[in-house]
């Protein structure tokens, strides 16, 4: 019995270490991409006049869908690269949920496998549910 408990604790701590690393790398990678895109953005259009940020353009803006952002980044469009970094930043905590799910599966914690799946489902619904309204 004692053995089982200590083993469980061990898995718990391993997952915690893994989540910690994953979150850190996610943020670092995202900010590096944003930085590269930002420098390119300033290099190309730094001396241009500021866009009218006091007026909201909404969906007239470019780079608001996944495909568009990916294409933009591939074409080395500065704004496309920045938005790719933004997407990676948003994906970082979502990926964290997946890592937790794996942890709970290893521990065979059925209750928390279900709870984690519910959270994941809500995230998927908000991402792909077409909630643009």
């Amino acid at each position, binding site marked *: 019995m004692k053995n089982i408990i200590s083993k469980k604790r061990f898995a718990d701590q391993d997952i915690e270490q893994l989540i910690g690393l994953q979150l*850190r790398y996610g943020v670092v990678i995202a900010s590096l991409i944003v930085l590269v895109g930002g420098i390119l953005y300033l290099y190309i259009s730094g001396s241009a006049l500021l866009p009218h940020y006091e007026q909201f*353009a*909404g969906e007239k803006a470019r780079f608001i869908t996944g495909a568009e952002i990916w294409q933009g980044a591939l074409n080395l469009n500065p704004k496309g690269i920045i938005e790719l970094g933004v997407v990676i930043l*948003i994906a970082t905590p979502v990926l964290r949920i997946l890592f937790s799910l794996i942890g709970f599966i290893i521990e065979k914690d059925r209750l928390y496998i279900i*709870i984690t799946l519910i959270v994941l489902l809500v995230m998927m619904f908000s991402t792909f549910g077409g909630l643009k309204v």
Partner: protein
Amino acid sequence: MTILTFTLLLLAGAYLAGLVGSLTGLGGGVVIIPLLTLVFHVDIRYAIGAALLASIANSSGAASAYVKEGITNIRLGMFLEIATTVGAVIGALIAVYTPTNTIAILFGSILLFSAAMTLRKKNKEALLEGSALANTLKLNNSYPTKEGEVSYKLKNVGAGFSIMTLAGIFSGLLGIGSGALKVLAMDSTMHIPFKVSTTTSNFMIGVTAAASAVVYLQRGYMDAGIAFPVVLGVLAGAFTGSKLLVRLDPKVLKYIFCTAIAFVAVEMIFNGYNHKF
């Protein structure tokens, strides 16, 4: 103003926002919205998009350190994330139908409340008797302190869950982490020691913000030209803040910043009331 000047000014401003946010515990996102709207006269919707990103960056960056120390209660965070993510999606949906002036007034009120919350007395006592539901959900846990591992139990799970849903709605509607509401739910309602509640709240902010972030991205709230200086500036500021926190006692700073933030909050409410957004 050229793009270069704007970017450099905003970078400096976001750095300060991240620093103040980290020293007060309010989070960088909260300070970014008044900075962008009141100082740079940016539309509040762009400000909300940028603040969401700042919250995610802040939360993930800080959580990576806390999780490793074993203070964060991952099960509790995961369970309450059901409430905050559902709330965040609801918040992002009603945001479309909410006039920007109303959003500004709501934001100012939440900011006032958050500033007051940071100055309150903190719960350091670990609860010894928990509720049955807390037991079933395996929410009781322990955390490391200087005097060794301290076990704690919690109660009022249902009430805490409801406040978390509200925190999620505000988070989705205003683009903030609503850390203050999260701490209220865990600290005051569920009686969790504040070290655990603040780190777990911070851990949850990233997921909560991400739940509404995609909706906002698709609506064009996240402009690359604003996101770039905000994300980098806030991250750098929060990093400096966390290093400073170890060396100095932020009590006096906290009072000064919270008073300043209260004035900013009143200005947001005033401008919203006068339909300036």
